[in-house]
């Protein structure tokens, strides 16, 4: 019997993973990689213009501003799956008041995941 099975049958309750953002354990390598390849991301002021104009966001839950937050925190678990929703239309780049090359951010993240798996937390 696996640990989860043992959990349920033996105790009737289980441990819950905390929602704390733990910068000591989160994987910051993807963030560092993206910033070194697209430094304009540091100019972001979080206005959300990218998300408001996003074509993919109209049909799916794709959200560039949220993606940016998660990337900066090192919360990269579901990022690769999320990337697949972007149509690379580039409207986000057109509306960005800070001139962030958002499309290249997406490209860079995709490129990073193609090279290695960033989703696992650092031990």
């Amino acid at each position, binding site marked *: 019997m696996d640990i989860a099975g*043992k*959990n349920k049958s033996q105790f009737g309750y289980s441990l819950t993973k905390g929602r704390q953002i733990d910068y000591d354990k989160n994987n910051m390598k993807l963030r560092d990689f993206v910033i070194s390849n697209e430094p304009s991301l540091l100019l972001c002021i979080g206005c959300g213009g990218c998300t408001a104009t996003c074509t993919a966001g109209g049909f799916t839950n794709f959200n560039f501003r949220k993606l940016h937050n998660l990337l900066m925190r090192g919360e990269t678990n579901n990022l690769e799956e999320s990337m697949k929703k972007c149509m690379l239309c580039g409207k986000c780049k057109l509306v960005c008041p800070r001139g962030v090359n958002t499309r290249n951010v997406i490209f860079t993240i995709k490129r990073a995941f193609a090279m290695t798996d960033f989703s696992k937390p650092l031990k």
Partner: protein
Amino acid sequence: MENHSKKFIWRDYQKEIADDHFFYVRSCIRQTFFPGSESFFLRLMRDELGKDVFEDARHTTCTGIGFHGDIVPQDTIMTVVARHFALMTEAGYKNIAISCVTSFGIYSEILETWKHFPEIEKRIRESLKKATGRTFEIPENIAHASDIIYKFRNEIAAKAKFTLINKNTGAPLQIVEHIGCHYSKMFPEYGVGGAEFPQVLVGMIKTWGGKVIDYPERRHCCGFGFRQYLIQANRGYSVSNSKKKFDSMNPYQPDAIIANCPGCAMFMDKWQYTIAEMEGTTYGKEDAGIPVLTYEEFAGLVMGYNPWDLGLQMHQVQVEPLLDKMGIAYDSSKKFKTKDGKDIGKPQVPESLKVGNSVHSCC
């Protein structure tokens, strides 16, 4: 800054603790989980410090567990506590010493309620009179038992046979102190140091030679909570909170945990086994867990009392590694025996949480 200014700034964090003549009220659960703690407290106060501590066999539960579990109404618990005050008044005492942090919180809450709503106090006095014919006086001084040990920490240090210093390295033992939420988070003025700077356990550790660990989740609740634990399906919340604390303190390599609340001490001890069984995670060195002791047990060890007389064999996480560090000699063959040599039965050895060589040798 001059001294008098400092005193002025810190005046809100001081607590007056009576010196003698206590009416002692026991805890419901401590006598089961830490059977030596309350008896040592009485022995310390009466035999070692020569204080007057009175107990009344008619004292009952404060019904705090039922109250926090939403099955005992507030008027009922206030009347039960009023009866305890009546027993104290009948015995001629004015200082109450409370063993349990839950009860301590209940007593504080009721006294504060009566202070702000005198009509409720009047109603409860009438209820008590009708039900039992008793009347009562409000205690002049309300102290938790840990307050009293804190007050006499220097006297205990003067009689110490052991200190909280690792005899192998000469370094102070790294101790995690954990204050029960109901000690000072609800009514800060009732606790030494208030809710922000609780000194009650820190003072003991430092006076007896140990070092306090300041870790990120130091003031986090142990997770006990009454509704969290009483319903089995909610216990995951309880154990997850404890795990958050253990994860946070473990990198600091604590030698032991000291707690002043029965629930905290019990759960921080027992949950270490549960977490080990659930996901194989163990804390402390060599997967042996971090020993969790009450303040009376620590005081007893410092004063050279036999660990098995203090009831330390009843703990989930075995205490031998701590005893070894303090240089306290113990007889493993007597660990699970009564005073007259009868076998009290040995617990099973868990799979994940290790119990150490000294324990194996006797099991």
